[in-house]
């Protein structure tokens, strides 16, 4: 079936460095791609999204890039901070009821 997946399950970065989390997707019919952050013991929290007709979108310290040619999505976090340590999920939005299909997640650990 169609799916959204992640290249790496874990990522460790030094505090202050930039982080890049990658995601591959297979469903070309999705009209939005979304990144969620999940801290331990909590529900996922919306970070940023990108519409399928865009290549790049920037937020506060985060940038999402979409490469439709190779069906690849990435989340860049600038100047990574300890509070950024969490699991990050990419998800694609489809269907009339706006259902989300999630990838398996990447654990980001920020080292002091």
């Amino acid at each position, binding site marked *: 079936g169609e799916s*959204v997946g992640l290249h790496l399950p874990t990522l460790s970065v030094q505090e202050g460095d930039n982080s890049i989390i990658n995601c591959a997707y297979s469903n070309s019919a999705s009209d*939005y791609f*979304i990144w969620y952050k999940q801290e331990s*013991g*909590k*529900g*996922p*929290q*919306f970070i940023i*999204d990108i519409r399928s007709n865009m290549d790049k979108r920037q937020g506060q310290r985060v940038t999402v890039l979409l490469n439709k040619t190779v069906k690849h999505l990435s989340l860049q976090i600038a100047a990574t901070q300890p509070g950024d340590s969490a699991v990050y*999920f990419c*998800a694609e*939005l489809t269907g*009339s*009821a*706006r*259902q*989300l*299909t*999630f*990838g*398996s*997640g990447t654990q980001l650990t920020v080292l002091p």
Partner: protein
Amino acid sequence: DAGITQSPRHKVTETGTPVTLRCHQTENHRYMYWYRQDPGHGLRLIHYSYGVKDTDKGEVSDGYSVSRSKTEDFLLTLESATSSQTSVYFCATSAGAHEQYFGPGTRLTVT
């Protein structure tokens, strides 16, 4: 914070017993969703609702049923719990745009 609460937050039950999880929202969002989260998997959609009394199946709906009699409440029922349904369950709501807001989760253990 979209004002989503889930109850109970933790539950241990025995195989074969019925279990109902409740999701309550205060935002008057039209759409509500139930997901489960297991190690090695992202969140997987169980059922969703696009209005009062309007529900549909998601990716992993076998063994689950839902009901929505009021806008603010979405119930997930395991008619006869099995060990494979041990998981963390998340409710989410949406006003119909692309952002979903998630509740704090319910940790269910079936022994």
